[in-house]
Each structure stands twice: as structure tokens, then as C-alpha cells.
């Protein structure tokens, strides 16, 4: 059994998980709908957002160059990392050069993608996750199960038990109290942090700004207190100009958290003389398969993604099994595509494209209109097929080429209803003697009677 299959199986038997995910995704969907239904310019905003992202991906190399010029002119540093290990090495080198050992981190899926946390740990650097959900997941020794709501798979009771066990507090499952506990614990860490690491939602080539969206204020603290600040993000996140942010930040807030505008929006650049800001700022841009994906005419559309997570909340498969079953940093419909584009080689998560009914809900909610079902289908088609499947497929093709073969196959299928694929049996009683085709042919004489007008082709 594949790891994914195994994880699905255990997820299917975890009632607590199922309840948590159903509850959270339904609430997320409802909040999003509250923001979006009744907006008369929603569809045109989606077009605008897509246009900006399209431009961003089309001009990516040029924009990286321009951003680097602007950002370094102000004393910041920009690095391009070809892959995960290079990115981790760069980060560790920066921190080591400062002798920094303790710092804070804000939620970032890119750092999850490259396993930065693990790399820092083995380098003897302690980076605590400060986003509440991410903090919970780190305490539990898990990975996030959702790209914007890392602890979505956990009930308040299980978080209460986790806090009691790991933090030595009295058990409570009140979300407000638990939040307060985390706030208190992390305050100390913020005040003593030697560095802050976060992701970045966008980088602005025109001005050299880093744009970050958040709600908890942990990013704000992470870039206000420690002297060294590092932003880690993908090379596809460059925008041409500040004005490009408008359609994106609004769509992001609505689609990700059902907010009109996110709690905090940072437009950050290396501080000028006499201004308030971190003493040192670094931006690490990660490729890790992205330039390959951008050069792939069918797949580059995935690079438009703004990581809002709406397609996860809406996906009936994700809502049934949660994120961990996908066995990849990025779960859900977007993850089933993206996971196969990233890394040293393509198609590292070959099974994931099958984990979809192709219902199209993801495509319908995507704020930048990514045609996820189409990309999933494309990946299915690209995959090397095991021989047995190929034989099955050719068998099907051979059958479908001729209606008489369909007849024979159909008769056989009805006879062995229990063993043929569900698509042919559907668990129903076959509809009387023979198929529609047989019945039509048998009834040719009636067909020609004045009472019924149905004609078979050869009569024409």
C-alpha cells in the first residue's frame, strides 16, 4: 500500500479528525462567501488579480533583477537559491555570521517546503514558530495540515491536552485561554530573539518592498524586535509595481480568511538613516523547480497561485481526509499539482493527481482562476503508466471502438456485476434485458411504426 493510501486509510478512521476538518473548512467557506457573495465586481477583480500574476510570472527574471537592484541599493541583501539545501545553507550562514542562536519564525509554506526548521535545528539554531497554529503544530512535532491554517486538523481539546503536557499548564480547552498562554510563552522569545524569519507574499520590483500579510502581529514583532530579519520566498512572487498589489491583497484576504482586509499588511524595505526598522535585511529567493515549472507551457499556470488556501477548504476530498494524508508539504488540489512541480525532479508525488473527483470546486473558488482540474488531468496524462494499467486501458479502448464489443463487454459486466469496476456496475440492477442499443435494434419494427419516430442511422 502506498504511503498516501495508508494515510488515507487512517484518516478515514479518525472521527475526531473528520469532525475538526469538516467544521473548520465549512466555517472558512462560509466566511469567504460572506465577503464575496454580493460583490458586483468579484469576477472582474479575479480577472485583475490573474492579470497581475500572469505578468509577474511572464517577466519573472527581469523583475528579480530589478528587485535585487532596488533592495541592495538600500543596503539589503538578496540571494537566489537553486534548491532547498542551498537555501538552508544560505540562511544558516547568515545566522552563523552573527553568532545568532535563538530567534523567531513566522509561518511560511516555503520554509516548510525546504524543511528549514529541521536544517536550523541540526545547525544548533533554535527558531520558534510564532504563528499560533504553527506553534501548536511545532509543539506536537507535526507538519501543518493546511497552507493558511496549520493546526486545522486539531480540536480544541487536543490542543488543550498538548499545552498541558508540553507547557505544564493546567488543562483548558478554551481557545481564548490557549491563545493567551501561547502569547505569554512567545513574548519572552520575541524579546530575546536575535533574528526573525518570515515568508513573503509578494516582492515589489519597482520599489524593492517586501509585502507580507498576517493577522496575529507575530510578523510585526518578528521584524520589529530582532536586529536581523530574513524573508524566504519563491522566485515567482515578484510583482512589477506597487499598484499591482491592489487586486491581490484584497483577493487574498477574502479568499484566505474571509476578511475584507487582513489584520496586518507590511510593506517593508531596508531602513534608511534615522528610520525605524531592522538593522539588517535579507531576502532569499528559492527556485526549487519553479523556473522549470514556469518554462512548462501547461504547468506554468500553477505559478500564479497566491496560496490563499480556498481550494483546500472547498475540496470535498480534502474535507474528508485533511492535509496530512497527502504526504506532502502542500496538500489539497493546489498541492496535488504543485508538489509534482517542485524539488529536484518533477513528479515526486505521482499519486496525488488521482486524489480528486475533478468536481471543479477548486477552480470555481480560485481567486486567480487556476484551472486545477485541467492541471491534475495533465499530470495524470504525463505519468508513466504501469503495464497492467496500460493493458486495461487498451482493453477499454479496444472495447469502445466497436459497439458490438461494448455489447459483449456489457453483458459480461452485468453478469459479474460485483467484480467489474464500479463505473460499469454502479451497484444497481441492470436495466432489464440488454442494453439500450440491443433494445433499439430489437425493436426496429416498432421504431418504424407511426407511434414512435426514433430512427436508427442506417434508415437515413
Amino acid at each position, binding site marked *: 500500500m502506498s504511503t498516501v*493510501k495508508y494515510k*488515507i486509510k487512517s484518516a*478515514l478512521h479518525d472521527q475526531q479528525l473528520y469532525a475538526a476538518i469538516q467544521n473548520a473548512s465549512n466555517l472558512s467557506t462560509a466566511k469567504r462567501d460572506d465577503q464575496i457573495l454580493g460583490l458586483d465586481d468579484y469576477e472582474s477583480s479575479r480577472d485583475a488579480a490573474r492579470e497581475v500574476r500572469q505578468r509577474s510570472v511572464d517577466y519573472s527574471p527581469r523583475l528579480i533583477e530589478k528587485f535585487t537592484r532596488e533592495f541592495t541599493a538600500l543596503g539589503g541583501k538578496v540571494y537566489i537559491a537553486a534548491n532547498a539545501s542551498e537555501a538552508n545553507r544560505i540562511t544558516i550562514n547568515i545566522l552563523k555570521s552573527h553568532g545568532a542562536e535563538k530567534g523567531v519564525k513566522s509561518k511560511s509554506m516555503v520554509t516548510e517546503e525546504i524543511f528549514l526548521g529541521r536544517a536550523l535545528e541540526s545547525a544548533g539554531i533554535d527558531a520558534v514558530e510564532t504563528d499560533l497554529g504553527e506553534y501548536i503544530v511545532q509543539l506536537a512535532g507535526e507538519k501543518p495540515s493546511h497552507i493558511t491554517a496549520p493546526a486545522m486538523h486539531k480540536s480544541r481539546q487536543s490542543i488543550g491536552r498538548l499545552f498541558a503536557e508540553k507547557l505544564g499548564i493546567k488543562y483548558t480547552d478554551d481557545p481564548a485561554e490557549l491563545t493567551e498562554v501561547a502569547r505569554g510563552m512567545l513574548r519572552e522569545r520575541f524579546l530575546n530573539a536575535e533574528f526573525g524569519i518570515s515568508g513573503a507574499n509578494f516582492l515589489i520590483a519597482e520599489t524593492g518592498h517586501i509585502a507580507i500579510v498576517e493577522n496575529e502581529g507575530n510578523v510585526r514583532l518578528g521584524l520589529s524586535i530582532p536586529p536581523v530579519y530574513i524573508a524566504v520566498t519563491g522566485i515567482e512572487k515578484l510583482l512589477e509595481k506597487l499598484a499591482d498589489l491592489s487586486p491581490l491583497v484584497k483577493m487574498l484576504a477574502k479568499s484566505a480568511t474571509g476578511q475584507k482586509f487582513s489584520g496586518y499588511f507590511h510593506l517593508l524595505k531596508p531602513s534608511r538613516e534615522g528610520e525605524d526598522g531592522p538593522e539588517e535585511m535579507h531576502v532569499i529567493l528559492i527556485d526549487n523547480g519553479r523556473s522549470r515549472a514556469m518554462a512548462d507551457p501547461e504547468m506554468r499556470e500553477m505559478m500564479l497561485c497566491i496560496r490563499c488556501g480556498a481550494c483546500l477548504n472547498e475540496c*470535498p*476530498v480534502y474535507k*474528508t481526509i485533511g492535509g496530512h494524508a497527502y504526504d506532502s508539504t502542500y496538500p489539497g488540489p493546489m498541492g496535488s499539482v504543485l508538489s509534482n512541480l517542485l524539488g529536484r525532479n518533477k513528479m515526486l508525488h505521482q499519486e496525488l493527481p*488521482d*486524489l*480528486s*473527483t*475533478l*468536481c*471543479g*470546486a477548486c477552480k*470555481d473558488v480560485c481567486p486567480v482562476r487556476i484551472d486545477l482540474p*485541467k492541471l491534475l*488531468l*495533465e499530470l*495524470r*496524462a*504525463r505519468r508513466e*503508466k504501469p503495464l497492467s*494499467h496500460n493493458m486495461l*486501458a*487498451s482493453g*477499454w*479502448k479496444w472495447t*469502445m*471502438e*466497436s*459497439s458490438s464489443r*461494448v455489447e459483449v463487454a*456489457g453483458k459480461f*459486466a*452485468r453478469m459479474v456485476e460485483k467484480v467489474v*469496476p*464500479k*463505473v*460499469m456496475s*454502479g*451497484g*444497481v440492477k*441492470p*436495466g*432489464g434485458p*440488454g*442494453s*439500450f*442499443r440491443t*433494445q*433499439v*435494434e430489437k*425493436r426496429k419494427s*416498432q421504431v418504424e411504426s407511426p407511434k*414512435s*419516430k*426514433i*430512427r*436508427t*442511422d442506417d434508415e437515413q
Partner: protein
Amino acid sequence: MLKTKVALFVPCLVDQAAVQTAWATVQILERLGIHLTYDSRQTCCGQAMFNAGYLNNARGSAEKFIRLFHDAEYIIAPSGSCVSMVKHRYADLDLSGSFLRDWESLRLRIFELTEFLVDNLGVDDIGSKFPFKVGIHNSCHALRELGIKAQPLKLLQNVEGLTLVNEDLVDECCGFGGVFSAKYPELSAKMGKHRSQQLEIDSPEFITGVDDSCLMHLKQAFKTNGALPGKTIPQTIHIARILASTSSSPFDSESYSYGGEV
């Protein structure tokens, strides 16, 4: 009397496992005086192969489909999913030459049954009678790729004796997904259970829709999971069979054949 000429496409699943739906479709179209043809060489639109990632095989089915149907004035099928495959997904099959040309015009002439009745013929009352409590499950491909939601609703609203329930229920996938259900049967079944329980809430006697594949999946879910406390399991029925039922030819769950006569 309408003089529209229609070629009937009976998707393989319907042909093999839901003959009643095909006959009901014939009945409805004939009742409207439509000149109907059926080419018995037809097989499958290619969707199953396409969704499984076998593009070459799917292209073969598509070419055959195009060859058989390109002359038709209209092509009507009692399935949203197969119509969507032909209309939209053929674009991803790298068709070429005359196949591509013929498909480009053919795709504008293929319709799902209820869509055809309401949008093309402008008919929303075809004199049907079906004195039961009915809920709709909107199938994903019909809903999201063809925009079919108002049409079946309109038709059902005008069926004599029919009580509509579940009208405000959110649309969600039943969990079938063709090859998906074969590869992940347990997962597919759990999704089916979730959806079937949503559909049971208003105690419908029947659940209807425009795609037999989803309805069969739901039927299986109802059967496996039994009724919710205090509810009875609804039957599943393709919308064509509801629309084909009239006072002179009432619905008969056992009847499978044309006009219930043979």
C-alpha cells in the same frame, strides 16, 4: 410541431446500466415532436480514459464520436458529464485536421437534455406528472462546467404533483469521480455518505439529477448506510424519468422500456 432534428447520444454507462434513462429521454423528445435519430455504432465519449490519463485512447474515442456525430443538427445526451467532456475537454486532446474543425462546430451543438429543453427549445413545462417529494443533487460537471442548475429546477417546478425539497442545499460533490472511486473506494464511499446524508435531511422520496453516474453512487451510499434516524431512504432517479412520467403513462419503478409497453 417542432421540426428540430436531434441525434441522441446515450453514454456508455446509461446504455449499459441505466436503460430507463435513455428510453425516458426518447419519450420526452418525441413527445415534443422532435425528429430523433440514434446511431447504434456509438460507444463512449472517452471521458473514462481521459480522466485516467490515457490521452491516446481518449483521442480514439473522441475521433469516433466526432465522425459519428458531426453532421447532426443537435446532439442531446441525458448526462452533463459526457456533454461537458465533448464540449470542453476535447480541447485538451490535441485533435487535428478535420477532427478539430468538426469538433469546433460540433461542440456548439451538443447539449445536456434539460439544458436543451429549457435554453434551446424554451420549454419548461412538458406536461409531466410525478406526485412525489423530490430533491435535486446537482452533479459537478453539469453545474460547474455547463452551468446547469436553473434548468432542471424549472422543469421540476412545473411537474404536476411534485414537491421540491432541498432547494437551498449547498452543492457538493457526491464523491464518485469515475476512476477516483475505483482507486479510492473507501474514501469515495465516505464522501458519498456525507452527501447522501445532506440530501436526506428534508426527507425526499426521490433524489434526482442529470447524471446517472452520481445517482448510482448516491444510491449505493443510501443502501450501505441505511436511513438516518426517523428518515426513510430516498430512491434515486434520473430527471428524464420524472419528466417522462405523465398521467396517461405514470411512473413505474419497474418499467425499463420505451413507453412501458414492451
